[in-house]
């Protein structure tokens, strides 16, 4: 039987653990939409036909999965349903979710969500993204996560452009009681990052998280600035930044793929953090990004509190999106 029922088995037989519950709660609104639509659809049709597949396609598109990926998933499901003689709507739905799961899971790379720490000095994480996706908040959440794990964390405020950005990160550093390196407003962000790397080394920091200004991926100068930040860090700490996360807002539409592509070309991205998943958006763009670029999601932001950050888990994501109500 399909993966879908495997998922359901996995999560209904096992007691729903704490983390799964966070997903289920956080994604309640997203799920309500998506899952109930799938469910409604299967109830309205006795047997699947062309209209049914069209409606399925619309549900996927509405989740921001993207047109071409949605079309492909549906085509594959259609073919397989024909080959296996499946006509029952519910089974078709399961087939579709299978395809989504497999598509993501088989894109290669052994994905470890947690940051891989170096033992020969500070591990550096560079955080980038377009404007307003929640970089600074995500950094605070990540810092909280690793401080809680007993790591020595330092923040570096290399967003010297946006008004109030340094202050915002400083407020978080005070709340988290961790070190922070700041530069003067409008100063060269690369020099702040360099100073951050230096301080991190001098203070035996485990994790240095570098905040950067939001930048739209089509602004060449700003993208060059970002790669300069990355280069300058590696001058102080070879091989750093060891991790570079692209923060993507769950409300992002098809432009998300373009974003990921451009940022990948500019710095060595090691993963995505998808934010604002507690809203009604389904964040399907992460499937399209993975499909086209192979970039995996590492963490998922589910709320405004410091604790509202979870490791990304495909099972749980799809489970939350598609099955949560049936649990």
């Amino acid at each position, binding site marked *: 039987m399909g993966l879908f029922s495997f998922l359901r088995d996995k999560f209904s037989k096992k007691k729903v653990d704490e983390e799964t519950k966070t997903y289920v709660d956080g994604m309640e609104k997203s799920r309500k939409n998506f899952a109930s639509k799938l469910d409604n659809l299967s109830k309205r049709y006795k047997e699947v036909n062309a209209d049914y597949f069209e409606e399925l396609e619309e549900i996927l598109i509405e989740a921001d999965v993207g047109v071409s990926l949605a079309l492909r998933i549906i085509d594959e499901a259609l073919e397989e349903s024909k080959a296996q003689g499946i006509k029952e709507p519910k089974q078709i739905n399961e087939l579709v979710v299978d395809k989504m799961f497999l598509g993501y899971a088989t894109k290669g790379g052994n994905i470890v969500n947690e940051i891989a720490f170096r033992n020969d000095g500070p591990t550096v994480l560079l955080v980038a993204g*377009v404007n307003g996706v929640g970089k600074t908040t995500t950094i605070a959440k990540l810092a909280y996560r690793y401080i809680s794990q007993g790591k020595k964390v330092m923040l570096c405020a290399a967003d010297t452009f946006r008004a109030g950005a340094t*202050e915002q990160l400083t407020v978080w550093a005070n709340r988290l009681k961790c070190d922070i390196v700041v530069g003067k407003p409008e100063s060269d962000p690369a020099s702040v990052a360099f100073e951050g790397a230096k301080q991190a080394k001098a203070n035996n920091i485990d994790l240095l998280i570098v905040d950067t200004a939001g930048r739209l991926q089509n602004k060449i100068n700003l993208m060059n600035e970002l790669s300069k930040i990355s280069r300058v860090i590696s001058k102080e700490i070879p091989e750093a930044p060891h991790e570079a996360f692209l923060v993507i807002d769950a409300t992002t539409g098809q432009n998300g793929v373009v974003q990921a592509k451009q940022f990948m070309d500019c710095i060595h991205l090691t993963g995505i953090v998808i934010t*604002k998943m507690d809203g009604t958006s389904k964040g399907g763009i992460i499937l399209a990004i993975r499909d086209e670029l192979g970039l995996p999601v590492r963490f998922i932001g589910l709320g405004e509190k410091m604790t509202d950050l979870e490791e990304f888990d495909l099972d749980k994501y799809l489970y939350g999106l598609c099955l949560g109500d049936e649990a």
Partner: protein
Amino acid sequence: MAFESLSERFQRALKKIRGQSRLTEANMDEMLKEVRIALLEADVNFKVVKEFVEQIKQKAIGEQVYLKLNPSQMVVKIVHDELVNLLGSGDSEIKYEKNKPTIIMLVGLQGTGKTTSAGKLAYLMKKKLAKKVLLAAGDVYRPAAIDQLKQVGAQVGVEVFSLGTDVSPVEIAKQAKQKAYNEHFDVLIIDTAGRLQIDEPLMKELNDITNEVSPNEILLLVDAMSGQDAINVANAFNSQLSLTGIIMSKLDGDARGGSALSIKHLTGVPIKFAGTGEKLSDLDVFHPERMADRILGMGDVVTLVEKVQEEIDEKEARRDAEKMMKGEFTLEDMVLQMKKIQRMGSLTSLMKLIPGMPSISEEQRVQAEKEMKNLEAIVNSMTPEERRHPEILKNSRKIRIANGCGKTNADINRVLKKYDQMKLAMKQLQQYKKSGRMPPGGLNGLGGLGM
């Protein structure tokens, strides 16, 4: 990685229907499929896409295809025009109060650009409209949001009203309003915290602010990059707050911004401003034309529209030319010709009909404009009979005309001379046409068209 533009998509669908002169349900199906995908890739909500495509179909069926366009280009044009129609309808002006402060409240999801837009609006109103603007810092939740607004306010040079983070946003709005009234500000812009539309306590807070200060404008910030869910967000904000407008932010990115269409289509709330860059001056009045081009992913729409325009001109020109060739050229025709030349700025469409025709420079154009006015004034002072048969113009008539339009006899003679030249050129052209050759070095007489 960038998506194909609609016209690129059409290239493929096109082959089947090349040369068909009317749009029918059958020949449009393929193209409408492509329209659908293009709109979906631009993040237009799928329900809106459905309705919109249906509308396009109804509009387009039976439509005559312009000669210079192929059927697919015709569809692009119809889609484009319909987009412009839809995006542009509704009042996009801010109405300012005369004797009291105009109150504007900015609302939206987190990270859509409220604080930045507050600064940009303040800049626009202060610099362009010379308004006295007060900014109110109503975001007490996000760390350093007030700092950000203060810095933005300082850059623009407007006052920022803040009560710190321990006072409720409703109270801040209330006191800001009092201050705006007492100190005779023209505009009060209230910045609010970003919030999810499903966050009931925070949505109630916006309602409370609205009840307390009754804003003239409640503007929702919409990120140009937002996807299918944008419409749910806009609907929720609109139903709870009765929005008066939308600001599209981050339009300097390369997202297609289809949510603009979704929101406009389903809520009817007009799009008033567009954020087009990181500087405080980067806020534009919304241009439906540009947005339509963007959604379709094509810079080539402009060319297309020009082509159509050209075709219309060309048809007229062809008719005129035929008329001229028959020797039916009158002073009225001359005025019409001149006007057309003036409008086009160059002789492009006529040049295509008449090889060897010189184009005119900018300098000549300005001169031509001046003379055009003379010509019009003179011809307008003639009787219809005189316009059609200038040869009857004797001295007494010329004096009457000169008096009528405030010109001199000499001016009138100049016009008549030019007319004779053009008429002669037409005749020449006709002869060359008959002989099947064009005159070497072009037609000097017609060069006078440019004056």
